[in-house]
């Protein structure tokens, strides 16, 4: 593999004295889908939040050869790193279209308008509902909006925290299909999921997280074939 896009080296994240993530290392390459699977409370959200700068991270963190550890959230976003957080964090009292435009806040207006059309092409539902307040959308539509808003910022790496959480299986399948489509358009993806089966199907590589540590990693099909994963996460 060539120079990785995102590289996390022996990173730890703590809440007060409690270490929720302990010395994990992870790479995401150019144009790669990498997934982190693990049970509830394993530390997946904590790790993503620390990568974007919501939580403090001890250890190494570089993105496209740039050291991120001293940067604020906004500066990390400006380097092309984007997080769709677990709770989506939409602007609920504002219309769908404003949410999207604000996702492109740093981008020049003309470029932003073109991206908006692409996002509408990817999620036609959002176009139909462009004037509706974000807070009144259904769960699946809110997930689409959160992803759309992140895409408006032209990310090179998109981090998705449990995009299928709380969605009907058919809608979740749509979301995973979109993830695969994004990869084809050149965006790298770091996907955190409890739905291990779907995540392993769409991903190139996978890490398995337990109690704040990675216990296993490798190509997605090999991880899926591992007996421990099969027993605890795939239910076979």
């Amino acid at each position, binding site marked *: 593999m060539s120079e990785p896009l995102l590289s996390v080296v022996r990173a730890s994240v703590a809440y007060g004295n409690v270490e929720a993530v302990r010395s994990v290392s992870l790479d995401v390459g150019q144009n790669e889908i990498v997934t982190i699977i693990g049970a509830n409370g394993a530390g997946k959200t904590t790790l993503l939040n620390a990568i974007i700068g919501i939580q403090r991270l001890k250890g190494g963190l570089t993105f496209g050869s740039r050291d991120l550890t001293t940067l604020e959230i906004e500066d990390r976003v400006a380097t092309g790193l984007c997080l769709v*957080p677990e709770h989506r964090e939409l602007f609920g009292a504002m219309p769908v279209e404003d949410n999207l435009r*604000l996702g492109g*806040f740093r981008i020049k207006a003309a470029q932003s308008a073109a991206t908006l059309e692409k996002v509408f092409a990817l999620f036609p539902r959002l176009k139909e509902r462009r004037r509706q307040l974000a807070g009144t959308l259904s769960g699946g539509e809110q997930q689409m909006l959160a992803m759309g808003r992140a895409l408006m910022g032209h990310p090179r790496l998109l981090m998705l925290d449990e995009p299928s959480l709380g969605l009907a299986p058919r809608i979740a399948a749509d979301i995973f299909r979109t993830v695969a489509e994004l990869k084809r358009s050149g965006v790298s993806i770091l996907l955190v999921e409890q739905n291990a089966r779907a995540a392993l199907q769409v991903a190139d590589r996978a890490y398995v997280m337990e109690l704040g540590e990675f216990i296993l990693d490798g190509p997605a099909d090999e991880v899926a074939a591992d007996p421990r994963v099969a027993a605890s996460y795939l239910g076979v």
Partner: protein
Amino acid sequence: MDTTILLFLLQDGITNGAIYALLGLALVLVFAVTRVILIPQGEFVTFGALTYATLAAGKLPGTVWLAVLMGAIAFAFDLWSMRLSFRLAPLLRSVVLNLLLPLAILALTSAVVGPTNAIAMNVLLSLVIVAPLGPFLYRIVYQPMAEASVLTLLIASVGAHFALLGLGLVFFGAEGLRGPALSSASVTLGPVPISGQALAVYGVTTGLIVALWLFFGYTLYGKALRATAVNRIGARLAGIRTSLSGQLAFLLAAIIGAVSGILIVPITTIYYDTGFLIGLKGFVAAIIGGLVSYPLTALAAILVGCVEAFSSFYASNYKEAIVFTLLLPVLILRSLAAPAVEEEHD
């Protein structure tokens, strides 16, 4: 009661109420975006009023030096926070905004100051001088502690209020000042003459409220400010800087404060500490609006103005007490309606 007196008092009440409304709106805006309860809002009123009155007297107002001073401190803060990740563009930006801009304003003001300046020119100069104080204040006091609790920010506000009050005394002295009216025209409505100044107050207030409405409803920067108010983390993830939103909110607060000061200094004599009391009345209105509702705040401000006008006629010794007593029923209602404890979980 005599209708003429009633109408006079109403006019008085609405004129002051319109100014309190502006201040109340600024308080709600600043709180929504930054969670700061802006006690020093009143100092912007003082600075606007005294700057305008000093310019009208043909002298150089001390606020130009205050801007240079605060800009230099803000620059030092920027340098300190850039020590870890140095980049040229933000440094240049900081030099221009914090050092060159106040110096340019100083040079400009010194060059054009004079006793025969047009009123419009002095108004404009006053705004240009006072406006940067808002972002400087945010940079120095609030930005370093942007993630602190509402209570901590409030304590910082009290400190900032006293600091600016002291600086006001240093730069303007203890003498009160009056400024020239914006317009000397007057119209008569039934039995009551309405002064040109009152008309100016109504016009400017309405214009400013419409301008704010357009800004928040139709521009990307206005929407970014709202987004920060609605969901701070969401805004940061979209790349909207909390510090940018904060400085923008404080810029608006300073402009609104200065406008209020310019509107009120032809009506009452303003001393270095008068702004505080005026700001507090905007604060009463903002509290009645729950620190969230703009329309409720504006209505409450008109009510505050009218209650003040009537109580200063009937019980002038108690007028402040009566105005602040308006808060009691509101606070009682709110504490009854609110669940027991709702401190800080954002």
